[in-house]
């Protein structure tokens, strides 16, 4: 009786686990909002996730079925003694080589996405690289907020050195926001990540983007957002008692330069002259004529 119970017990819980996993997306226990990523690279990350999930599920079901079977057989064994066997060389070879192949495949198959995400030379060293002007902002993480610095509207970077100079110290025309980062829609965005005090991590779950901000380092990250809207920005590296409340927002908008103009108008507003809205309007025309 108790044998049957325990055999069923060890058979039942993996089934329950699989059922819970299968219903997860419907219960909204999956990726944020149960939606695909807001960046193309994020979609590839999701694909890799599901690929590993498939392999892992097959391996899990396989081992659990075998476990249930051997338990069942061993519990019903009516022989006087167990099977006197010290193993099988052939089986060892098989279950070494087959998983090794699968694992190696997983490892090699992942390389490409990582290469695009981080490794491939970002090509800023060349003069007039078109990517130089993908620079959108510098994000400084500090306890417990995100400070964002945009270059002055119309700034053109001609070399990596100019970027480094800009990063090294604040410039007169820079624009600032706190906890709210705007990025252009459908255009590659380059961000430099800094820490003002301790270690933080820039994490936008809906975009599948995560990078630690290390004190003393400028770390560049790049991504393309292809869905307009607001995304939650959180901190993923313990940074003190207020770690949980480092809440920010990333907004992807079509008219990014318009946003910068508006921000400039707000920042330049001295409280007595024309209203911020009007300055924004004139500022925009000036920009066009220049």
């Amino acid at each position, binding site marked *: 009786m108790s044998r049957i119970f325990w055999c069923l017990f060890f058979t039942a819980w*993996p089934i329950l686990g699989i059922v819970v996993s299968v219903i997860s997306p419907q219960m909204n226990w999956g990726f944020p909002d149960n939606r695909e990523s807001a960046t193309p690279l994020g979609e590839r990350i999701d694909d890799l996730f599901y690929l590993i999930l498939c392999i892992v599920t097959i391996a899990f079901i396989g081992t659990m079925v075998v476990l249930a079977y051997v338990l069942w057989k061993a519990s019903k064994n009516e*022989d006087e003694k167990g099977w006197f066997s010290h193993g099988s060389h052939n089986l060892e070879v098989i279950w070494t080589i087959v998983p090794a192949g699968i694992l190696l495949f997983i490892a090699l198959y992942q390389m490409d996405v990582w290469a695009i995400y981080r490794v491939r030379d970002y090509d800023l060293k060349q003069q007039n690289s078109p990517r130089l002007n993908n620079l959108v902002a510098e994000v400084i993480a500090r306890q417990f907020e995100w400070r964002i610095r945009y270059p002055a509207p119309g700034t053109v970077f001609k070399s990596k050195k100019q970027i480094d100079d800009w990063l090294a110290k604040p410039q007169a025309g820079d624009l600032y926001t706190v906890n709210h980062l705007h990025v252009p829609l459908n255009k590659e965005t380059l961000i430099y990540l800094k820490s003002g005090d301790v270690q933080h991590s820039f994490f936008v779950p809906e975009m599948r983007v995560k990078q630690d901000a290390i004190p003393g380092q400028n770390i560049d990250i790049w991504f393309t957002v292809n869905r307009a809207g607001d995304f939650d920005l959180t901190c993923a590296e313990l940074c003190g008692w207020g770690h949980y409340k480092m809440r920010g927002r990333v907004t992807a908008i079509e008219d990014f330069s318009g946003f910068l103009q508006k921000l400039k108008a707000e920042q330049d507003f001295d409280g007595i002259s024309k209203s911020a809205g009007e300055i924004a309007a004139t500022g925009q025309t000036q920009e066009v004529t220049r």
Partner: protein
Amino acid sequence: MSTQNPADAVQVNSDGTVAQHADHHGHPELTFLQKYIFSTDHKVIGVQFLLTTLLMLLVGGSLALGVRWQLAWPWQSMPFFGQRFAAEGGQISPEFYTMLFTMHATVMIFLVIIPVLAGAFGNFLIPLMIGADDMAFPRLNMLSYWFMWPAIICFGMSMHFGGGPAGGWTSYPLLTALPEAAPGSGVAQTFWLLAVTFIGVSSMMGSVNYLTTIINMRAPGMTLFRMPLTIWGMFITAILQAFALPVLTAAGFMLVFDRGLAGLSGDIHTCFFTPSEIVVNNAAPTVGGGQPLLWQHLFWFYSHPAVYIMLLPAMGMVSDMLATMCRKPIFGYKPMAYSMAAIAGLGFIVWGHHMYTSGMNPALGMTFMTSTIMIALPSAIKTFNWLGTIWGGKIRFNTVTLNCIAFVSLFVVGGLSGLFMAAVPVDIYIHDTYFIVAHFHYVLFGATLFGVFGAIFFWFPKMFGRMMNERLGKLHFFLTFLGANGAFFPMHMLGVAGMPRRYADPYIHPYLEHLMPMNQFMTVSAIVMGLAQLLLIGNWIYSIFWGPKVGRNPWNANGLEWVAPSPPPHGNFEEVPTVYRGPYEYSSPLVEGRDFLPQTEVLAPSASADTDDDH
């Protein structure tokens, strides 16, 4: 249940080592203090370690329940512990919450899992299983236990002064290097680092001792490939510890120096990890050109092998228990031993997988990904061999067996979920989310602790000469298994939903709001699991005094420890045992009427020619 007379064995196979071992009889009368407190007997030290770690298990579990309470019902006043701990209204404040998860991890890793495996079972089992009378260095062994107490005291000081350590168990600088960085980064952090150093000293003394003992003090005939897999696990663990620990100790001292010579003077300090011109909480800007990433490399160079320190001995013990309870030789003994060695070897070159998103050179991510994914291979081989061991066995469903099967079955989950994190691109997303929390709880609780529970039941008769209560044991297993899966399985979902770890209140982020009911379910499961441990402690204490008495070999097992009396006297064996075969000759056709063949048993010459079976 026959044990043959080992005296015959000595005559058959004496080879010089016998004389050296035989002189430990006629010990002088010991006082109570010498016998039970400052004992140099490895068995007493093992039991001392076991008692201490069980106590610390309750402490670490209570801290975890504090964490779970806050995640399920944030900012609600906490029942029971509320009046004792939290400052205002029984609420858990954010800084108290950081202390809770920091100390939960610290206590569980440094005061429960590492010492219960190496300290308690390593101490108790190594001399018994290899047929030695004691450890090579009994006094060092005693010192290794007593060095735990300064560590425990320092951890206690750390919790009570300055708000408790706030850096997480990983203690990444600058949060931990600059005393102004957080409420707990002052004196609490210094005490924490001191405590970890004490624990390191304790572990190091243990590992040197285990290595020497296993290499030099094996009984006649106990070749390396006749050692039980438990001993292989302990042996490889001791090597890991001996090589990895100095790095952590050095890193700890570097951090202490960075903090201003242990807090004596903030003006005199080094800058290993502190870059210049960092301003924390309006303190003066820092000087010096240190690099915070250096700590992460040094820390994980120890702490990744430490993960295997926390697993390999349990793997070994489960192998022994499964073979005994399935009445079958272990399936693939040598592959089992080799894969443990492979795990240990690869374990030294995978530390960077904790740092994929840290900003280290990204090309390193590819190297570490390949080595990390390949470490799944020896783990898979071990799992298949455990299944092979059950295959065709004649299984006994007792508490030991149940815990061992739980070990195998939950280790599969923990191992497979590791693949997601090993893959760098996927890890970008799930790094530092609850997915990783799910993964290491399945390995450390699901595998290691279930292995330990099994081992407690299995070797209890040898420790105290009595059996533990089966009915209570099964109930404990049932509740713990349900509670553990209820608490840890949903963590996978939380991780995929993007919930970061170490958040005092995740629900202020809109995309996490809907996960509160799931967290409440997990907390209820965790409470069930926590309460179930009282059954274990109760059963343990009850059985020491009132459990049914047993003889030398209650499980009909083959290992040398079952030749000694239960409990074994000081010096362990009446005569030095001689070993004729490996420890897994269950259901051997060479003997009639019983399904076990102890390592020391002499068979008739015609038969014994065939029994030397190392394969």
